[in-house]
């Protein structure tokens, strides 16, 4: 990377960010655990560890707020990496002049979310920066959990199915509309939620999981496909979409495949167990729209590719999101 200044795209979760991490971060520390680049890392002693920062704008949106995101985002990183979340740290960077009522609301939200996710906030930090040198509030949470599984990409087999736990794009749309960007009103709500109901699936044979955040479903699956010896094929018609997201997709031209969620995951399931996984997920309120959306196969495409069979019957290669049109979505 020879650019002299950091661009906004670097934080988008796409190719630029991954290159930044690969070229600047990993070589600087040369640590085998860091090099694994998983969402949460399993440390010696059966502990899993992760961290995430939250800079969403605006702070409050239908279905959630920055506080709730800060808890669930980190909780979910642990769950999908094979760990039961236990403890969180909470660091607040507050801009001078923020109304205390707003901060109270955020903290109340964090408390509620932590309770719902069965995690304890056990340590933290508070900083205040001058007016104009921050933006209302930024939050960082680090999470510690108990390792319950050690998912490996190498464990994924040909014929394994891709299960999606529910509709995609709702969080992105909720934040976009809360910004008042598009003169669009809809009933959409962020899907921000803890994915604890997925923990038992590790014992049931789940091979691999990832929560669908920045960059959306296509980016997450592309990053999976890159590392597999077989291409991934997903069916457009099987991807659950809420009505508001479908409408926004048509109205605004944004592709739901690239829209972030904050309470959905892809789970790679052994072929024989996929339908059972879906049935069990659907019993839970957060998994009512769970569906098998694709599989690891070698009928079409080449290794390393992610393919979409469109509703019209065509085949399309999917690339990861390269530039985030809307910054600060999470």
């Amino acid at each position: 990377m020879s650019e002299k200044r950091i661009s906004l795209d670097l934080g988008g979760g796409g190719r630029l960010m991954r290159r930044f991490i690969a070229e600047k971060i990993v070589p600087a520390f040369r640590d085998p655990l860091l090099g694994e680049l998983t969402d949460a890392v399993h440390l010696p002693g059966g502990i899993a560890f992760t961290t995430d920062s939250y800079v969403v704008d605006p702070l409050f949106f239908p279905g959630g707020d920055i506080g709730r995101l800060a808890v669930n985002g980190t909780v979910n990183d642990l769950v999908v990496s094979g760990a039961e979340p236990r403890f969180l740290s909470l660091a607040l960077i507050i801009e001078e002049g923020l109304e205390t009522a707003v901060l109270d609301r955020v903290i109340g939200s964090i408390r509620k979310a932590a309770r719902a996710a069965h995690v304890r906030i056990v340590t933290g930090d508070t900083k205040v920066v001058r007016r104009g040198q921050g933006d209302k509030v930024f939050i960082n949470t680090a999470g510690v959990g108990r390792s319950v599984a050690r998912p490996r990409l190498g464990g994924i087999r040909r014929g394994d199915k891709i299960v999606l736990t529910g509709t995609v794009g709702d969080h992105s749309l909720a934040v976009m509309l809360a910004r008042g960007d598009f003169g669009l009103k809809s009933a959409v709500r962020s899907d921000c939620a803890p994915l604890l109901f997925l923990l038992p699936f590790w014992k049931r044979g789940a091979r691999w999981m990832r929560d669908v955040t920045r960059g959306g479903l296509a980016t997450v699956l592309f990053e999976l496909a890159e590392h597999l010896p077989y291409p991934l094929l997903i069916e457009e018609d099987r991807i659950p979409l809420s009505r508001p997201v479908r409408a926004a997709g048509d109205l605004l031209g944004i592709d739901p495949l690239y829209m972030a969620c904050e309470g959905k995951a892809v789970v790679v399931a052994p072929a024989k167990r996929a339908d059972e996984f879906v049935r069990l997920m659907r019993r839970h309120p957060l998994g009512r729209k769970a569906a098998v959306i694709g599989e690891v196969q070698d009928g079409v495409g080449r290794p390393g590719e992610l393919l979409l069979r469109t509703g019209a019957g065509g085949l399309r290669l999917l690339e990861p999101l390269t530039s985030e049109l809307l910054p600060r979505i999470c």
Partner: protein
Amino acid sequence: MKELRNPAALRRLLGDIGEKARSLGRRPRLMEVCGTHTMALFKSGLTPLLAEAGVEMVSGPGCPVCITPNGIHEAAIAAVTEIEGLTLATFGDMTRVPTRTGSLQTAVPARNSRLRIVYSPEEALDEARRDPGREVVFFGAGFETTIPSIAYTAKHAAAEGLRNFSVLPALWLVPPALRAVLDAGEAAVDGFIYPGHVSAVIGAAPYEFVARDHGIPGAIAGFEPGDILLAVRSVLEQAVEGKPRVANEYSRAIAPDGNPVARALMDEVFEPFDAVWRGLGKIPASGLRFRKAYAPLDAGARLGLGTADPGRDLPGCRCGEVLRGVVRPEGCRLFGKKCRPDSPLGPCMVSFEGACLIHFKYGSPGRPAS
């Protein structure tokens, strides 16, 4: 609208198309001139299906952001970086076009100035109304679909006596571009798919010269997969019958005469001039500029921004040739390598309607191999 995406109906249309293509005895090459058509074709995976049916689709100059020469993008950047207390409002993809002075998105605004992404020109006007002390410039690139909205906005700004609102226009007309593509004779085209929403404004008459003077068939198409296939089938039918015309295959939205109210507004505020297009050079009567009565609304004149110099493409960029339909994105050596969406070297890789971005995001026709 899901009937228009029904796979069985689409297969039936593809079958008809295949039959007609075969009876023509050669592989017809159809050009669409609307980035949203390019996108629809790729997103639904129709391009390879049409290729299988024997029809080759090629993109023409259908991306207004792409055909706006760098000089105008650089003028927009100058406005927000050199003038204090200014809001530059524009559509999302305009902000990422790379020029010698960077892009709007990476530009460092002057003191108290900012870049603002809007979805309607009226949003920019609203800001000017709310904040009379602030200079608001709307930078708008568009074809006849968008021009009436910009005309409306400018007209109201003038009528309200606003002194702090102006428009930096990059307004392009489709029929002259078609004329230029045909006169250049480089892109061997057997038929046209005409842009649906441009036609909602201009109607079908402006395309008649294509059938009449060049003997080339064409059809106005909507944007669902079914709409596009209906239009392709119509074009091939015309070719088989030897009766080229302008068919309206988007009749639910296109009145034969288009939208006279919108056209009158365009005509009231703007006048045609010989504009310079990226890749196609100067085309007679192909661009719109403010009429004298509306000159105070022209940001270029008002703020002293040099928009006359077309500027230069970044080295190696073949966007111009892509826009002429002469080279496919994949034919550019930089495509997918040095020039990618996260490191674009030209607007075709930036705009939502840019052929290079669309080919990159949605995979090139003929792939994936199986």
